[in-house]
């Protein structure tokens, strides 16, 4: 007996029963659901053999047997938040077997396909591969931390090495250890210098002023001046050095986040707004910088100050020192309570500010649309409501952060009052060895002593704020990048054969976007992909572009699994022309040569010429040096499209993908673009998505996609002869065109 495939461990009670069930059959697969038929959380199970299945609607239910011979079709119905597995028997009766959440839905679908295959052709071992593959895919999680892995053998970037937050960020400070240590030494020096003046002041009060010794007064003042000059000169130099080091640390961090953001898969951006990514690169890195400097510099200095002053104070008068420590426990308790309260507040504040950034990145580039709809007022109102939310949260934070330092300072002042009270009593009662100078020095030291106490009490605030920022930065730094970028196989060349084998895909698990896609495209084929909006055409292209890796089944390029080919190399072999081409804020030359190193000007001219773009570019006053505005402002839609085709020509790709390349242009421009495309597609595997079927006249193969499935595939002639969906689409469009032509003729007359 082979290994039993299972998505989850069988509940003990059912496991004991299952062993008894398979006497005349072989136990192959377990499908463990997490809902009862009444849709309460609990266990439900189907166990599959070679000849039939047993199902348990819930953990208490008796097993029921259904032989495959009785089954006409097995299906999984996905609903909202749950799904069920049902079978239609040959006598027409339908039966729901078990229910489950989306956690088990993909395995259940593979099981349904397994049964349907057996019902049709009898049992074959290869039918198990689909289930095996899906379970394997589900299990690609790191056993240690649970993070999803690109494949089951992959090393988890999260658990690799140190992996912890502090060590991760301290890594950025490591190259500057020397400078940070120098800053620390300078800080200790300035702190030591700051301990001198109170002592000298005490000396002046006790020895210089009562003796009316002018010479000594001038000397002590001169000494004080020297101490101050030295202290503040060193402080200035230290601040400069610290700023420089801090900036370098934050630069390293920002660079890494930006770099990581470039390599993150599209699925990350589907779930994360670009505004929030920008916020993380800008504000959160500064919070980390602040924290690293606070820990490596201020914390050390403040600790040194605290210990230094405590030693001096104890040596001056231990009793008075103990009196002055009375407020410390209260300060510490308040600090802790404050820390707990402020942490969640900072997190909420960050979310509000991130929402504002998101709104800005959304609306500012869309200012043309806002104006076109005269929606300026509504946009402002929307922005106001976001700001109001931020303001509400900020007010709460401000209240707390305002009250806390004031309360702390009040407590510190109370500590000084205790010293005045006790010290004053000592002097008035003439306690032996206690002078006015000593009291003055003591009060000065005590107020200096409370600074580090205050610092450590407030430290939790900075710490919480930093943890909130660090979590968000790690969300990017630790996110799984696009896999094996620069690490996979590099074939000599890509011929352009593309095969889809049983590919299923969904963005989230609630709805399948592509179902059971099987497709074979030969090198040099020109394939038109047609279908209504939302049918899954662009998703098909997204999978070929390998923007998403999270699909079931296989995509083969020249017979090799797409996931095994080096991603960087592979994308370099693909030319992609979109419906709305993206232009960068750069010269036309650089826009055409985008992504290429050391380009010869003539190759750019040739590419532009092939793309029918050279003509209009040469008429521009600045020619190829014309700087395009954001999103290519300054060029018409058709011109941008031709620049984008020229960009594809420059790449000399093996596979060419055209996504509605002529959808947004007039017929004159369409003709120019069509000419450019015809020159471009020669000798390359080309996939063209098109709504206007007339643009597919060069296609030797047509794929009709409907509701995520390929419903027709063949040469245009074959599909027309079939009189199916493609035939209807052609008919509708030609009727529309005839009508338009008639209207145009009438208007002309």
């Amino acid at each position, binding site marked *: 007996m082979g290994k039993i495939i299972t998505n989850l461990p069988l509940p003990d009670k059912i496991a004991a029963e299952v062993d008894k069930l398979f006497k005349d059959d072989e136990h192959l697969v377990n499908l463990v659901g*997490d*809902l009862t038929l009444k*849709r*309460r*959380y*609990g266990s439900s199970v189907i166990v599959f053999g070679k000849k039939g299945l047993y199902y348990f609607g819930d953990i208490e239910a008796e097993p029921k047997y259904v032989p495959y011979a009785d089954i006409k079709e097995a299906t999984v*119905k996905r*609903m*909202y*938040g*749950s799904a069920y597995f049902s079978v239609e028997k040959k006598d027409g009766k*339908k039966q*729901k077997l078990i229910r489950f*959440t*989306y*956690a088990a839905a993909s395995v259940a679908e593979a099981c349904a396909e397994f049964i349907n295959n057996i019902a049709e052709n009898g049992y074959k071992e290869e039918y198990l591969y689909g289930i095996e593959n899906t379970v394997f895919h589900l299990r690609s999680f790191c056993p*240690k*931390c*649970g*993070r999803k892995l690109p494949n089951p053998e992959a090393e988890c970037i*999260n*658990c690799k090495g140190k*992996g912890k937050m502090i060590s991760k960020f301290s890594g950025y400070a490591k190259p500057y250890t020397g400078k940070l240590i120098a800053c620390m030494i300078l800080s200790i020096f300035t702190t030591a210098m700051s301990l001198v003046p109170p002592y000298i002041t005490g000396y002046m009060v006790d020895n210089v002023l009562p003796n009316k010794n002018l010479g000594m007064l001038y000397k002590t003042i001169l000494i004080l001046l020297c101490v101050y000059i030295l202290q503040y000169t060193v402080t200035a130099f230290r601040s400069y050095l610290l700023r420089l080091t801090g900036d370098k640390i934050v630069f390293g961090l920002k660079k890494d986040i930006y770099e990581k953001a470039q390599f993150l898969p599209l699925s990350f951006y589907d*779930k*994360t707004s670009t505004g*929030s990514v920008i916020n993380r690169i800008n504000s959160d890195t500064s919070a980390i910088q602040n924290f690293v400097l606070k820990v490596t510099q201020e914390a050390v200095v403040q600790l040194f100050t605290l210990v230094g002053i405590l030693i001096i104070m104890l040596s001056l008068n231990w009793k008075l020192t103990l009196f002055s420590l009375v407020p410390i426990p209260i300060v510490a308790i308040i600090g802790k309570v404050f820390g707990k309260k402020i*942490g*969640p507040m900072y*997190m*909420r504040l960050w*979310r509000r500010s*991130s929402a504002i950034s998101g709104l800005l990145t959304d609306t500012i580039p869309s200012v043309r649309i806002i104006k076109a709809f005269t929606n300026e007022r509504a946009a402002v109102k929307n922005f106001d409501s976001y700001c109001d939310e931020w303001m509400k949260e900020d007010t709460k934070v401000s209240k707390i952060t305002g009250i806390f330092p004031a309360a702390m300072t009040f407590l510190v002042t109370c500590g000084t009052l205790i010293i005045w009270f006790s010290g004053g009593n000592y002097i008035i009662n003439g306690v032996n060895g206690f002078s006015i100078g000593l009291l003055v020095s003591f009060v000065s030291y005590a107020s200096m002593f409370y600074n580090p106490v205050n610092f450590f009490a407030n430290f939790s605030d900075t710490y919480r704020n930093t943890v909130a920022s660090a*979590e*968000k930065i*790690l*969300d990017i730094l*630790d996110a799984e990048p696009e896999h094996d970028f620069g690490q996979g196989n590099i074939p000599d060349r890509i011929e352009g054969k593309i095969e889809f084998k049983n590919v299923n895909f969904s963005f*989230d*698990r*609630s709805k399948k976007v592509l179902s059971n896609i099987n497709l074979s495209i030969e090198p040099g084929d020109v394939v038109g992909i047609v279908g209504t909006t939302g049918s899954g055409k662009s998703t098909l292209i997204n999978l070929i572009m390998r923007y998403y890796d999270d699909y079931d089944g296989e995509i083969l390029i020249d017979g090799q699994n797409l996931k095994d080919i080096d991603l960087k190399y592979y994308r370099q072999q693909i030319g992609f022309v979109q419906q709305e081409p993206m232009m960068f804020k750069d010269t036309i030359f650089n826009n055409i040569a985008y992504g290429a190193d050391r380009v010869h000007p003539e190759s750019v001219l040739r590419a532009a010429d092939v793309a029918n773009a050279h003509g209009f570019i040469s008429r521009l006053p600045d020619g190829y040096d014309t700087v395009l505005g954001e999103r290519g402002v300054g060029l018409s839609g058709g011109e941008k499209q031709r620049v984008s085709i020229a960009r594809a020509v420059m790449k000399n790709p093996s596979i060419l993908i055209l996504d509605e390349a002529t959808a947004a242009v007039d017929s004159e421009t369409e003709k120019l673009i069509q000419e450019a495309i015809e020159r471009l597609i020669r000798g390359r595997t080309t996939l063209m998505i098109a709504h206007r079927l007339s643009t597919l006249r060069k296609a030797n193969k047509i794929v009709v996609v409907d*509701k995520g499935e390929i419903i027709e595939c063949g040469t245009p002639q074959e599909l027309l002869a079939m009189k199916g969906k493609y035939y209807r689409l052609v008919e509708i469009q030609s009727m529309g065109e005839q009508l338009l032509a008639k209207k145009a003729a009438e208007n002309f007359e």
Partner: protein
Amino acid sequence: MITYIDGPEIKITENDGIFIDAEFFHTGEKLTGLEVHRLFPMSGGNKYLVLLDEDGEQKAVIRNADNLMPESKKVVLRALDEYYMMPRITRITKMTEKFLIWMWSVETDRGPITFEIRNHLASVKPLYDGRVLIKDANDNRYEIPDLKKLDIKSQRLIGPKL
């Protein structure tokens, strides 16, 4: 064009679970095996319900289930209840984190469950009406109907995630 149903011009009868049969009085059309879905699952309650045939083609939109004939309304609400599952969280018992992956243990109107949240920013959405929508790592949805009505411990646990 959308065909709107205001109430008495349709008779809806039960078919099987989430499926219903409908008879349109004004056209005399009888359709079987229709599914009824909410056009506004988050905000619309029982208003604007779309009837879809087995190909997913829209047949009609019911403006408000409350205006249907009592029997029809009962069938529609039963089918909706069968189709939509968004457990209501009544208590949060535990939240643990390891390597930025959070496990929430909660009690819901459908029993206790533990689920995984990978990113609170993307998965936990507080709404202005006090509701909180949660989507776990498997894309299952949960709802907290009123944040303020949760017990203090649950509020304390979820507070930092909002």
